[in-house]
């Protein structure tokens, strides 16, 4: 392809870094052997679809992590080496929040100020403290700065931040409450900004149990970071068993279990796999969606950090069922520890011959690749995720066609959430009948709920479907002493606020339908009366404005107008009815006319907060 580049050239270090990275990936010095169409569209007929463009994001990561920024020269060189237009690589880089597309490096402390941390009451003291101490937001001081960040999935361990420094390949989680007994969080944050040093070991979140039934998923994802221990515990036996069945037999069993997706949409897993298997394509793919970015959700991170092997085993089973020889795990960059554990586990499992090159244990040669996001909530939407793996901007595609027909690189693709796959592993181990023994008729089995906010013991809890909201909150120790319940957010920022009258709602698909709520990704965020709910509503509106990909008009402009209208409403004690009407209308059109789930749910929590939980009323609200 005849592409023209600007004069901007990389520094020798940048050039070496990019060349080194590409060499590590086993990429030939040029892609000249592939046709232009193959390179651009990812329609390579070679079985291994290592087409050039998918190295754009990993390449940008390798530059950013070494130099702390992505310069024009580096973009040019990466684009040239991969045969991509510089404008497109630049467009991709600027789409993702975590790429610093600039000439100068800067270390950044991404402090979560999202609703989970607000519910926990840690945001205002911390951010105000930093401002008072002379550290305004987004102002570099000795090469380091802090920025507010959308939910980092650390709601149960608030306050926490994600710290990126030049030379630190993946960033680190900083526990700001590290020595809270000795000094306030603010001082921990300041010393971090000054020294750039984090001395904290990764902190693990264990999984609690709610309800009377014995643990299920919890036993599968028991803490193990050693493949031998996992194998001694019966690991990969289910895969062996699964490979003695035909794909159809496996899918029949999953269908019988009634398993539905745990990412938020709740689509029947068996039906999805059957659709992929039925496609007449020699190549099919499996993609695991570990881009857990829904505010208040941290169950997938907890699964992976506790036991990455179980996910790998589950994917190998799912791959067999769908007829996919290749799987991808797409994980958000803000989960460096989970990604590191997965990377290590993948290497171990590959060495053991259970995935990777075809062999006795792995006849078809099923393999898994890890893809890391770069700061974009929208990439949790399945088609945006596929575009992101392909090295493009994370813009959702119009559906149909659905990924089961035309997914990754245009091939039939099953996209499944982490927890969904772990459920499939359990079903293969114990059978569909056993699976249905707990839960409800329409929501068999258990679910991992992410409990956060004003509860004594926030964390991930496994509970059978049908448990009530009240029981779940009680299991987490109820509210701290002296706190009074104001409302609960179910399903995250794309979910629904419910009030005290809804505490007996059963958490199942039947219960959700009857109570007109959504379980979404299993978020249960508890707010007490000391939280400024107006600030929470504003933060949700800001979140969607910030995370909209910008592609379609209702979402790109609608989320901005929604935030403005909400600000006007919150400005006055008694908002004008016509302002409320405008907000409602914006909500209904975003829901009706947006391309993807982001725009379609961007008004959900705000609408329910105003109309259902009556959060605009100031009683019980000191905000």
């Amino acid at each position, binding site marked *: *392809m005849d*592409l*023209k*580049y*600007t*004069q*901007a050239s990389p520094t020798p270090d940048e050039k070496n870094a990019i060349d080194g990275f590409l060499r590590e990936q086993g990429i030939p010095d040029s892609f000249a052997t592939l046709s232009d169409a193959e390179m*651009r569209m990812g329609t390579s007929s070679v079985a291994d679809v290592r087409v050039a463009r998918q190295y754009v994001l990993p390449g940008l990561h390798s530059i950013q992590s070494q130099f702390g920024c992505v310069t*024009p020269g580096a*973009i*040019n060189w990466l684009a040239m080496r991969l045969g991509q*237009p*510089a*404008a*497109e*690589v*630049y*467009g*991709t880089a*600027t*789409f*993702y*929040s975590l790429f610093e*597309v600039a000439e100068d490096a800067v270390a950044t402390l991404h402090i979560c100020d999202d609703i989970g941390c607000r519910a926990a009451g840690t945001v205002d003291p911390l951010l105000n403290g930093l401002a008072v101490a002379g550290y305004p937001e987004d102002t570099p001081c000795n090469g380091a700065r802090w920025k507010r960040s959308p939910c980092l999935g650390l709601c149960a361990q608030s306050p926490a931040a994600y710290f990126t420094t030049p030379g630190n390949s993946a960033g680190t989680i900083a526990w700001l409450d590290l020595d809270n007994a000795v000094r306030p969080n603010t001082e921990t944050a300041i010393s971090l900004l000054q020294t750039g040093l984090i001395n904290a070991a990764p902190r693990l979140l264990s999984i609690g149990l709610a309800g009377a039934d014995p643990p299920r998923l919890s036993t599968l994802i028991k803490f193990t970071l050693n493949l031998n221990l996992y194998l001694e515990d019966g690991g990969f036996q289910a895969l062996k068993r699964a490979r003695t069945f035909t794909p159809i037999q496996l899918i029949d069993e999953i269908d019988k279990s009634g398993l539905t997706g745990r990412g938020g949409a709740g689509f029947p897993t068996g039906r999805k796999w059957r659709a992929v298997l039925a496609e007449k394509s020699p190549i099919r793919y499996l993609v695991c969606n570990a881009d857990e970015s829904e505010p208040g959700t941290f169950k997938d991170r907890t699964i992976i950090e506790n036991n990455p092997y179980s996910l790998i085993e589950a994917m190998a089973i799912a791959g067999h069922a769908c007829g996919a020889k290749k799987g991808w795990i797409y994980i958000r960059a803000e989960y460096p520890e989970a990604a590191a554990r997965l990377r290590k586990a993948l290497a171990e499992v590959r060495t053991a011959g259970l995935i990777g090159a075809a062999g006795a244990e792995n006849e078809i040669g099923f393999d898994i690749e890890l893809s890391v996001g770069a700061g974009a909530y929208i990439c949790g939407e399945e088609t945006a995720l596929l575009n992101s793996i392909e090295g493009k*901007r994370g813009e959702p595609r*119009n559906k*149909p066609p659905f990924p089961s027909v035309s997914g990754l690189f245009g091939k039939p693709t099953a996209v499944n959430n982490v927890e969904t796959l772990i459920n499939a592993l359990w079903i293969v181990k114990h059978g569909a009948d056993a699976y249905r023994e707990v839960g409800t008729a329409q929501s068999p089995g258990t679910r991992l709920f992410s409990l956060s906010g004003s509860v004594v013991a926030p964390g991930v809890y496994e509970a059978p479907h049908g448990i009530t909201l009240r029981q779940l909150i009680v299991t987490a120790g109820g509210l701290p002493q002296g706190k009074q319940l104001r409302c609960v957010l179910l399903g995250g920022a794309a979910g629904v606020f419910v009030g005290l009258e809804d505490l007996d709602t059963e958490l199942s698909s039947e219960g959700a339908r009857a109570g007109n709520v959504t379980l979404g990704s299993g978020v249960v965020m508890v707010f007490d009366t000391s939280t400024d709910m107006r600030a929470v509503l504003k933060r949700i509106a800001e979140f969607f*404005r*910030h*995370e*909209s*990909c*910008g*592609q*379609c*008009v*209702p979402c*790109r*402009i*609608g*989320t*901005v*107008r929604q935030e*403005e*209208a909400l*600000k*006007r409403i919150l*400005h006055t004690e008694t908002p004008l009815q016509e*302002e409320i009407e*405008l907000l409602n*209308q*914006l909500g*209904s*059109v975003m*829901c*009706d*006319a*947006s*391309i993807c789930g982001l725009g*379609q749910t961007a008004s959900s929590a705000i609408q329910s907060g105003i109309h259902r939980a009556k959060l605009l009323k100031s009683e019980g609200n000191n905000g």
Partner: protein
Amino acid sequence: MADLSLETTTKMELIPFGADGRELSAPSGSTILHALRLNGIETPTLCYLETLTPVSVCRVCVVELDGNRTLVPSCSRLLEAGMRIQTDSPRVRLARKLVLELLVSAVDMSLVNEDTRAWMHFYGVDEQRFERGAVPVARSTEPVIEDNPLFVRDYSKCMLCYKCVEACGTDAQNTFAISIKGRGFGASVSTEFSVSLAESACVFCGNCIAVCPTGALMPITEYRLRNEANWRPEDQTVTRTVCPFCGVGCNLELTVQDNRIIKATSPQDHSITHGSLCIKGRFGWEFINQRGEEQPVNSVDQTTMRDGHE
């Protein structure tokens, strides 16, 4: 894209569908939009163009489709037998109206074509809908970029329809000089690192201008005449001719005002160009205006362009 010209479509199988209470049919392989148009049901579009791959981002063509939770974009959704479609229900009207109001609230839409104007009137668009004081309303307010002698880019008029990016890319020119940068409300069309067009991969074919629906991209001749309040459509004639530069046979439509050529385009339905031209056809006509004049008003100087001359 699918060839939906009449000769091809008549060979196809007709499939039945219902729209607005009428029983209709259209060739299989049609989009809903095409099926509606064949049956005389008008539908507004902004980001859609026959010659480009539909991106379905403006959402002004949405229709109600029985069995679908949300409205669907008619420009890309393929017609299926038995579909029940509503194009004028309260839901559709509300969505189209609000989408247009959102656009007008953020983008300078003053130069959209008459069709779009008529639709805005039809849906009762209130252009001041979101101007409610108290909180300032965000708008795109980028300054006009005049970085080359041939055309200007005024991104305050850009509605992000993606057409220019498509025309610069695989749908027409395969030059890839521009892409979408940024995200959300801050997204915009840009070269890499916003370098000038002369520094970029741009070959100045102007095919992006040809597809722009809002006048954000404009030949400099038109831009200057408009700025001088001297752009007078009522005094303009359009003459169709064949481009004299090479043997391909591209048809040109020359817009003439005061006996001077002020703009060249190619008809979108022309079998050779599909509306596209090269730099010579689109901009290489100034010499004709030079008859008896001394100084070129706007010369196409290849050397200065390559050197990044302003």
